[in-house]
């Protein structure tokens, strides 16, 4: 971005205040772009969640607004904007209003340092990955603030749960990230990706058995930081009504909601960067990619699809697993994740001592780990096929002739309401 700014300033021959103004405008423009991209991604994720949930539960999910319901999230957003923004009478109004902003800023500011492509990054910081971990701590405060300011006991419990949970799980997250930093030797997001390659055995997840374990540790901890099932205690619907966002409505609720989904994308994108080789295309070196626009776009598509898979897994887990209790949550963090990530960190350090970077033994370890991962996937697929076989037999009880995929047909409907009714009456009148 600095290069772009320099280019503009130099080519226009600006200096002093006006140069700074151009710089500022550029910053605002890039920030707006990042925010827009983040919003779109999280909006689409809300739709994806509902569609995936639908299919997992033998339903369809929203499919009416736009093709395949693709515009549903826009309509939902519109609805939420138009709703009244209720502030409870006894709430602390300023803090109540401020909290969603903190959450939204904390999550979307992190998008600034996501490497969507080799050149598609708003700002490639030296401390990229640490910045991502740090800026999301605003979310903690925002959530705590919302819980406190709502003046509702359920919200309060939710807020405190959220804060305790996020603060605790930052430790395993940071430790597992540290393992990767140890291998890559850089904190910059692009640097970490450049160290990896396009093929699976060049990814850091298959670097050695320890990184393979670290990925799962990171994933679990990140799930907990994102307040997703099985760690969604802060908004545990059946316990705390809706947790810290119980009292929120309208746009402020949408803020929390979108921030949650942006957080999912964020964690998948970080996982993609750290473990799955980011935008690297198999068989193409970064130097080759830098020269070609087509390869750039392919790289972006590769990154997006990898992180989309990550998002899918998060959603899929959310619709499968039950929720932990608060003491189990903490014991999972302090008894399992933290010690194990320490072990992995130490293991990685020892591994690096034994196998210096370019060596054939190293490649062998990569290959073996990749093979192991492949075997796991094959076992999983067999289980899926087994389940599909034993109970996937569709139930054909034709009492109702139900479930036939019908086209929209108002004439089949004898009495229909609203617009359908009007259309129907028009047809009747024409006859």
């Amino acid at each position, binding site marked *: 971005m600095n290069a772009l700014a320099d280019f503009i300033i130099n080519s226009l021959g600006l200096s002093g205040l006006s140069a*700074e103004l151009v710089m*500022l405008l550029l910053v605002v423009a890039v920030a707006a772009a990042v925010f827009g991209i983040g919003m779109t991604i999280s909006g689409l994720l809300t739709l994806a969640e509902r569609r995936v949930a639908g299919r997992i539960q033998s339903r369809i999910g929203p499919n009416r607004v736009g093709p395949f319901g693709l515009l549903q999230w826009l309509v939902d957003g519109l609805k939420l904007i138009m709703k009244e923004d209720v502030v409870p009478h006894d709430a*602390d109004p*300023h*803090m109540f209003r*401020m909290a969603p902003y*903190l959450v939204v800023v904390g999550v979307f500011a992190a998008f600034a340092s996501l490497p969507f492509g080799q050149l598609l990054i708003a700002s490639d*910081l*030296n*401390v990229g990955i*640490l*910045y991502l*971990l*740090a*800026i999301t*701590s*605003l979310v*903690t*405060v925002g959530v*705590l*603030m919302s819980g*406190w300011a709502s003046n509702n006991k359920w919200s*309060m419990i939710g807020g*405190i749960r959220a*804060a*305790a949970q996020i*603060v605790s799980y*930052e430790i395993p997250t940071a430790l597992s990230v540290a393992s990767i930093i140890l291998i890559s030797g850089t*904190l910059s997001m692009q640097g970490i990706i450049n160290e990896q390659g396009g093929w699976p055995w060049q990814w850091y997840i298959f670097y050695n058995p320890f990184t393979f374990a670290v990925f799962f540790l990171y994933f679990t901890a990140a799930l907990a930081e994102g307040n997703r099932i099985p760690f969604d205690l802060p908004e545990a619907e059946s316990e705390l009504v809706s947790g810290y966002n119980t009292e929120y409505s309208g746009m402020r609720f949408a803020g929390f909601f979108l921030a949650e989904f942006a957080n999912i994308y964020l964690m998948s994108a970080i996982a993609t960067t750290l473990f799955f080789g980011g935008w690297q295309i198999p068989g193409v070196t970064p130097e080759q990619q830098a020269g070609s626009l087509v390869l750039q776009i392919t790289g972006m598509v590769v990154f997006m699809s990898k992180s989309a898979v990550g998002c899918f897994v998060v959603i899929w887990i959310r619709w499968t697993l039950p929720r932990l209790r608060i003491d189990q949550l903490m014991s999972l963090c302090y008894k399992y994740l933290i010690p194990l990530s320490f072990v992995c960190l130490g293991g990685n350090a020892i591994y690096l001592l034994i196998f210096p970077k370019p060596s054939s033994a190293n490649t062998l370890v990569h290959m073996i780990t990749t093979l192991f991962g492949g075997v796991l996937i094959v076992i999983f697929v067999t289980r899926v096929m087994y389940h599909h076989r034993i109970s996937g037999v569709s139930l054909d009880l034709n009492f109702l002739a139900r479930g036939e995929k019908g086209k929209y047909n108002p004439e089949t409907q004898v009495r229909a309401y609203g617009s359908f009714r009007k259309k129907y009456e028009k047809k009747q009148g024409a006859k």
Partner: protein
Amino acid sequence: MVFYFTALITVGTASYAVFSKNITRCAFSLLYSFFGMAVLYGLLSADFVAVVQLMIYVGGILVLLLFAVMLTGNIELAANSNKTASRWLGYPLGMVIFVLLVSVFLRVPWGKSAVQAYLPTIRAIGESFLGRLLLPFEFLSIVLLAVVIGAVVIVRNRNVCNASEEEEST
């Protein structure tokens, strides 16, 4: 420009934290102050410190403070604790210190060198920590460990004491 804006936010929210009567709001307004400090560090080309400031102060200390505020019950009463004579001592004292400091800062001719370009500091920091400053670094970890154990002991011990005393009294 960025500097003045950030400085304004930092000082403004810090003074709110100092003068407000509502202790919860005090703690929350400290968030902006810490955040502003991080931005100032960033402006001073100390990117690693800025990130650490965010992680530890905002993510750690502030949350701890907020927990303490929320756990220490009757907040509304404690918040109105400005009505003491010490106010007449405190405000002038602050003023005097401020004037003193500013006069010193402005009078001393600091040996200024030319402002350098933004440089990544991480490598240098890392090398110092694992080389020149290894011993202090290790001491720091021991101190942290001691602090964690100490804090747990302080909090736990009270509970047990209280419980046992209550058992005695009943």
